[in-house]
């Protein structure tokens, strides 16, 4: 009887642990589904914009300049992906797949924005293509990410596109090649508009010097 109680207590305790494991996994699965749904929505939005662009040959430039297209959705996706990566691990197949989709959306948005900016002379956004590594070989990447997040929050017109350098995605490899990003020069690396790549960590003050265009962008009152 006494021995049975020891066993029953063990089984109940193990069952509580198993339940905790199950709930945590279910919530992580819901997170992944949530990210996927958002990505699909963003994907449709980009496709719609591209189609609209193709159909009309041009868009109402004032509308674009006043409303940063998809910027919010992409930023929100970045935050959610980061949480998912933290919970599930960066090697998780779902996370990797979501990151690839996200990177593709970023590239498409970047290309579209470039095209729009050429067609709309008044629309002069500032782009940063940011390349980081999650492989443990880039101790400054976290801090660089913090600086860019702060800049993006301060200047809503600034468009920051973050890419995991080691992500196995052909479109990303093409982007890396076209922007001449060389890993051996040391990550983090970033490209501001069409300028030459900059390597290594830069703090907030250094970034403000590196990107004089920031002065042309409106700032949020909340963070200034």
């Amino acid at each position, binding site marked *: 009887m006494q021995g049975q109680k020891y066993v029953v207590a063990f089984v109940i305790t193990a069952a509580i642990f198993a339940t*905790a494991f199950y709930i*945590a996994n279910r919530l992580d699965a819901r997170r992944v589904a949530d990210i996927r749904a958002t990505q699909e929505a963003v994907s449709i939005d980009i496709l719609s914009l591209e189609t609209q662009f193709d159909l009309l040959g041009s868009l109402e430039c004032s509308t674009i300049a006043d409303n940063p297209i998809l910027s919010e959705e992409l*930023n929100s996706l970045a935050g959610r992906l980061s949480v998912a990566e933290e919970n599930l691990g960066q090697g998780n197949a779902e996370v990797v797949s979501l990151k690839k989709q996200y990177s593709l959306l970023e590239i498409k948005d970047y290309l579209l924005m470039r095209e729009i900016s050429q067609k709309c002379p008044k629309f002069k956004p500032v782009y940063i293509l940011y390349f980081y590594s999650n492989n443990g070989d880039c101790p400054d990447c*976290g*801090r660089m990410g913090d600086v860019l997040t*702060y800049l993006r929050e301060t200047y809503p017109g600034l468009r920051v596109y973050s890419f995991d350098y080691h992500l196995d995605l052909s479109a990303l490899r093409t982007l890396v090649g076209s922007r001449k990003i060389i890993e051996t020069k040391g990550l983090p690396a970033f490209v501001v508009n069409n300028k030459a790549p900059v390597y290594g960590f830069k703090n907030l003050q250094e970034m403000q010097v590196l990107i004089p265009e920031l002065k042309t962008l409106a700032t949020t009152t909340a963070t200034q």
Partner: protein
Amino acid sequence: MDAGAFGLYICLFIALYFEVFLLISFFEKKPAKKNSELPAHYPSVSMLVPCYNEERTLGKTIESLLALQYPQDKLNIVVIDDGSQDNTATIGREYAQTYPGRVSFLQKENGGKYTALNLGINQSRGEIIGCLDADSFAAPDALLEAVKHFESDRSIMAITPAMKVYRPRKLLELMQSVEYTFGIFYKKMFDNLSAINVLPGPFSLYKREVFRRIGMFRHAHNTEDMEIAFRMHQHGLRIVNAHTAFVYTTVPQTVRALLKQRTRWSQGFLQNARDYRHMFFNRRYGNFGTLILPFALASFLAGIYAALYAAYRITSAAVARVSDIVATGIPPHLPAHAELSWFYLNTTMMTFVVAAVLAMTFVAIVLGSRIAEARLSVKSFAAYFAFFGLLAPLWLIRAAWGALLARQSAWR
């Protein structure tokens, strides 16, 4: 998962297993309600009140014993002053003069609580020896409730009461009132397992033959009430809990005093556990040897580990944050677009396991309050859950350090 987190899971598993085990014990044998039956026989009782500098509360303690519902000719109160430097002796002497035959007063040089108790045992004649710390007060029916247990089963050799905090008002007292209620549940479940691990100073009762068979109180690292319980288990003497015998005790009102008291208890446990290490995992000593002692030690170590791990994580995160702020040059700010969504909640397995442990603790406290007919306010629960986890590691670590250095902790 890193090794540190894995260790924390092991600690949580131990805590949860223990709580589940005790809850199973509760549902197997629920504590009986208080009834109005009176004992058929009233054994003579000598209530010993050892005291050292207790002028503030001694009078009230003696008054509570004088008010016990028990035949006057069967109850003798023995106040033993252990060389106090305040007015304790004067108060004790006055009571002995006012209530001759009912209150006796003994005085001795300071030698520690156990020496005062032993003097009281030698100088008294009761069939039952009761002890009541001079900072505690017994409920009027506490002795009747306890004596009924001796009558119900002749094999019972000692009885522990249900201890409550006397008039908790300050935050620290409210925290301890919840802790003591939790203790009432634990004590009753330990009783169900025949494995009560301590006979507390406030209102524990012994048959006189206990001391004839196993000897008198010992210094026992200033925790003679714990050591005698260990020794009784070693000799197969039965201890039960009278959950309807209430005793109210004053508790430390400052963090410093609390740390001192709990360090003494915890260090006493470690040192007594070392002295009685042969009982660990020894089936000859029943649940006391196979369950309570190992789990008590494991809980002790788990508490220290969890606290150190949490401190390490919090400190390293804080250091990293400060270093990031300095390196990045980003002024302190709130996120510009903080999103309120479940998505950002911490829903790791650890969160749910910790929630399960806290929920079990809450259930145990509620059951304890039902057993002891105690009412706990929301503020008390808040104080307990907010502060106990922060304070307990401090005395656990101090006690472990003290035990390692074999320092003697002070009685007062």
